[in-house]
Every structure is written in C-alpha cells, then in structure tokens.
C-alpha cells in the first residue's frame, strides 16, 4: 500500500439551499507537487477548499487529508495542514508577532525562533512589532502565508494568495511558493484565477467552472505539445483575409491577437503548411513561429469564458 495522499476528495457536493456550489468533485493531490485549482470567481474553488479543511460540511462526499477523514479524525487530519483561506485574517489590534504567537499556541506553542524565521521568510522582520491594523494588503497577504507556514506543514493550502497584489508582490509570492516546492517537503494546493501565475508554478492543474471539474491533469497533458499554437505576422491590411483563409483551409478558428498578428491552434498543422497556404493567396508572412498553448487558451476552450480570469 502506498503512502496516503495529501488530499483525496471523492464525490464532493455542496448545496446552499437550492443553489449547487460544487457538484460531484473528486480530487487526488500527490505529495511534493504544486497543485493548481483554477476557475473564475464563483466557480466553487473556495467552497471546495472550505470542505477540504472542514470549515463547512459537504452535502455529499468525503475528504481525506493524509489518509485521515476530515470529519471523523479532524484534529489529526488538520494538524499537518497550513492554510490561508479567502485572504489573510488577523487580529488588527495585535502586532504581527503576537498574532503568529497566538495562533501558534493553538497547535501547542511555537518557538520564538520559528516565528522570527517565518517573519524573515515573508519579509516582515522589520514590521514584526507593528500592529496588523497598519499593514498594507500585500503585507497582510504575506503574513497570512507566514501563518500558514508557521508549523512547517506537510500540506499548504493557499486560496487566492496573490489576490489584490501588485506585480512585485505577486512575483514575491510566486518565488515563495517555488522555494517551498523546491524544498520538497511540502505539498502546495493553490487556488487562483490568475492563469499566468498558475502556469508558472503548478505541476498539476484542475479547472473548475460552475462547481464542476472540467479538466484535471499535469501541465503537459493540459497544454499539449510545445508547438500547440502557431503565431503569424502578416500585412496589417490583409489580416482579416488571412483569418478567413486559415479558417476555411484548416477548419480551425484563428484568433486576431492585434492588428496583423494572428494565432492558430495547431493540432495536426505545421507552420510550413500555414505559410504555404497564405503565400499561395498572395499574403506576405513577415513572421512565423510556434509556441505551446497557454493555460488561458485551454481554460477558454473549456469554459468558453475568460471574463474573470487574467
């Protein structure tokens, strides 16, 4: 028998009155990986995380954390988890250090040295004695991650950790998650609607929409080959003609990225073929390349909606 999985959810359903927030969701998160949980706002990501952590009771289904049922063996299941659910939360009238100490005590106490270590890790050593009420959103977010890391958990659950952060803050958190992953001791379960970020740091990804899991797999499985998308640069005034031609010739739906720049899903199509097709119609190709599909493209293809994602 293999080691228990950090997260194993089977047939999760959650209904709030008549509204179904999560429907028949099953998850298997493997140890030592960064697992991305993607979906637009309202997809059911946070509701799922709340069920995984025992904050709410599933209407149906079960959750096991490291092999322990979250309802029946809550304390032991959750003792190996560090979490930040739907934003950081602290007592604003206490300092960063006192907040960490207070929450650390709930698990049996935490050494002052570890608090210093975590504060340094999230770059808040200089602000340790300041009240959290005066912290910026980014600082609170970092302290929230620090709190989740405090007891050196085997499973780190971060719900939208980059929400509301500026690009620099987002990068810092990305680097932090990468460092945790590289350390290899902690499995990271990360929810976000920032697809670019997820693509950079996740090993496996699940895509959720309207409470249902649409697709789950490794990034390679989801994004396909390295040449999944052909990028073209044609004459500005002829891009519309090129679009129609590519659609008619290859049966695909090319996309106008900006004036003169096209992209085409390249399932079974080679760049040379595309070049020949355009050239034969007298459309000059100024640039031609192939790249992997982005998570955003996969997401839009699956959900047909990109309004909430970035």
């Amino acid at each position, binding site marked *: 028998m293999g080691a228990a999985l950090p997260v194993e959810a089977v047939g999760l359903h959650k209904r709030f009155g008549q509204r179904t927030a999560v429907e028949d969701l099953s998850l298997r998160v493997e140890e030592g990986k960064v697992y991305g949980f993607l979906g637009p706002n309202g997809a059911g990501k946070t509701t799922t995380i709340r069920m995984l952590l025992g904050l709410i009771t599933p209407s149906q289904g079960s959750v096991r954390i490291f092999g322990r049922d979250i309802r029946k063996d809550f304390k032991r299941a959750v003792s190996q988890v560090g979490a930040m659910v739907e934003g950081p939360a*602290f007592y604003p009238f206490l300092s960063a250090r006192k907040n960490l100490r207070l929450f650390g005590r709930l698990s049996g106490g935490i050494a002052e040295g570890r608090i210093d270590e975590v504060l340094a890790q999230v770059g808040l050593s200089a602000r340790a004695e300041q009240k959290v009420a005066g912290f910026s959103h980014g600082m609170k977010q970092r302290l929230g991650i620090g*709190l989740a890391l405090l007891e050196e958990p085997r499973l780190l659950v971060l719900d939208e950790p980059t929400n509301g952060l500026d690009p620099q803050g987002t990068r810092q958190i990305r680097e932090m998650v990468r460092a945790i992953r590289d350390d290899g001791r902690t499995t990271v379960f990360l929810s976000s609607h920032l697809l670019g970020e997820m693509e950079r740091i996740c090993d496996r990804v699940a895509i959720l929409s309207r409470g249902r899991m649409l697709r789950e797999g490794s990034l390679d499985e989801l994004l396909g080959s390295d040449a999944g998308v052909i990028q073209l640069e044609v004459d500005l005034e002829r891009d519309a003609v090129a679009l129609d031609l590519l659609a008619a010739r290859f049966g695909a739906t090319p996309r106008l990225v900006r004036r003169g720049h096209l992209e085409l899903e390249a399932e079974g199509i080679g760049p040379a073929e595309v070049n020949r097709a355009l050239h034969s119609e007298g459309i000059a190709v100024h640039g031609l390349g192939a790249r992997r599909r982005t998570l955003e493209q996969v997401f839009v293809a699956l959900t047909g909606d990109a309004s909430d994602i970035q």
Partner: protein
Amino acid sequence: MTDPLDFGRTVARLVRADVTKLSHYWVVLIGFCAIFVLAVPGTMLFHWAEQAANVASNSGYDFALSVVNRLVDAATPIVYVLICILFAIDVSNSTLKCILTRPVTRMELLCSKYVTALGMVLLMVTMLWVVALGAGAFYHGLGDLTENDYVIFEGSYVLGQFAIGTGFVLLCLSAVAALGVTVSTFSSTMGGAIIIGMILFFFFDMASVIPASLGFTLSLGGEPLHVPLSTLGFTNQLLVPLDLLGDLPTGIPIRTWWTPEILRMVVTCTTYFWIFFAISAVGIRRRDFTL
C-alpha cells in the same frame, strides 16, 4: 474517542489565546473599565445617600453587601454584552477560520468560550466585591458585624457566608454567560450579537414577571401559584442569595443555604445553563463557517 487530557489542554490553550486577545481589545477593556467606573462612584453615592438619610451601615460588611446588591444588577448586562461578542470578534475579523483550520475541534472551541465567559463573570464579581469591601473598610472598617457595639457576627463568619453567597450568584451568572455564548455562537457580526443578545436578556429579565402580570398561575392541587412560572426568567435570580445575605446585618444567622428559594434558583439556573449549552453545542457543530 476524545482524550480528556488533550481536550483540557486544547481548551486551556484556547482560553489563553482568548485572554491575550481580549486584554488587547479596546471594547472589552472599556467594558471592564465601565464596571470599575460604575462601582467607584456608586459606592460613594451610596455612602452620601446613607449620610443624607442619616442612616449608617453597621459595618463595612453591611455596607459592601448593600453596594454589591445594587451594582451587580448594573454590571451584569455589561459583561453579558462582552460575552455576546466572544465569537463575533473572531467571525468579524475572519480569524475563526484560522482557529478552525488548526487542530482544534469545535467542541473544544465552544468549551473554551464558556471558560472565558465564566472567567469574565468571575472577574466582574471580584471587581465589585473588591471595590465594595474596600469602600466598606474605608468608611466603616472591616471588623466584626456589630449592633450598638454588640458583636452579632464575627468578621470571619460574615466573609465565609459572603463567599458561599457569591458562589450561588456565580451559578446564576453562569446561566447568563451561557445565554451570551449561545447568542455569540449564532452571530456573525458584533452589532447583531449585541442587539439579539440584549433583546434576549431583557426578555428573560421580564419573563419572571410576565406570567404573573398576565394572570397565569399554576395550580398544583391547592392555591394557585405564581412562583413556578416566575422562574421562566432567570437573570434576576442572582438577587436570591444576596437577599439571604441581607439577613446577616439584621442579626439573623444563615442556618442553611438550602432554602426553597435557593433550591429553585439552583434548579432554574442549572437547567437554563444546560439548555443554552446544548443549543450552542448543536449550533457550533452544524454551522457552516462561510467567513
């Protein structure tokens, strides 16, 4: 199976965390300052009123008892409101999710809130007695209880009886605290907790007189009785042991604490305590914390 030792340790940790945060929270600090501020001028006003009426307490004990009798009624709603917000502090700051995602069961969390609430009640009663006895000692001295220089009760006896009476007062206040924790368990905002809490407090305060004023009585084979229905309200039952203590300055010793009134008070308050505990336990177990 829950390990009682582990349960106790976790509850103790949670209580310690509560004490840390409450001792830094201005609303709670103001609440306890208000009790102190209420108590100090209250004793002074009482002393001036005695002087104006040309009556004087027999001793510091007599004076302290009269003061506590008056102040406990005013201080109880203040502490009760603070208890009502015990959970709401965590819900409104969203910190409840940080607590509930740690190895802490909901039952342990609830029990810790009860312990904290009882601690707050104990602190309130202690504050009142300290101020009252301090003022009693200042104005009259804390010697033996005398009547025209004749010692009717020794000081140690009076203090012992005060301690027993305070124990019964604390039992009633435990039921009040249980009501507060129950309100708190179901509240998501501090404002909501305070409003619902005060409505329920005054409901139970009035509940003791409503049946009688509506003419409802219980007939148990003999004379119609108002008394059993009056125990619907429990918040003012704390005056029962204080009334009994009030006999001491008149020279009547307390031969037994188990009078029918005290027994009724004990049964009423214990019943209410467990009813509220059960409601709050069901509430916290079933509640979805969508914070």
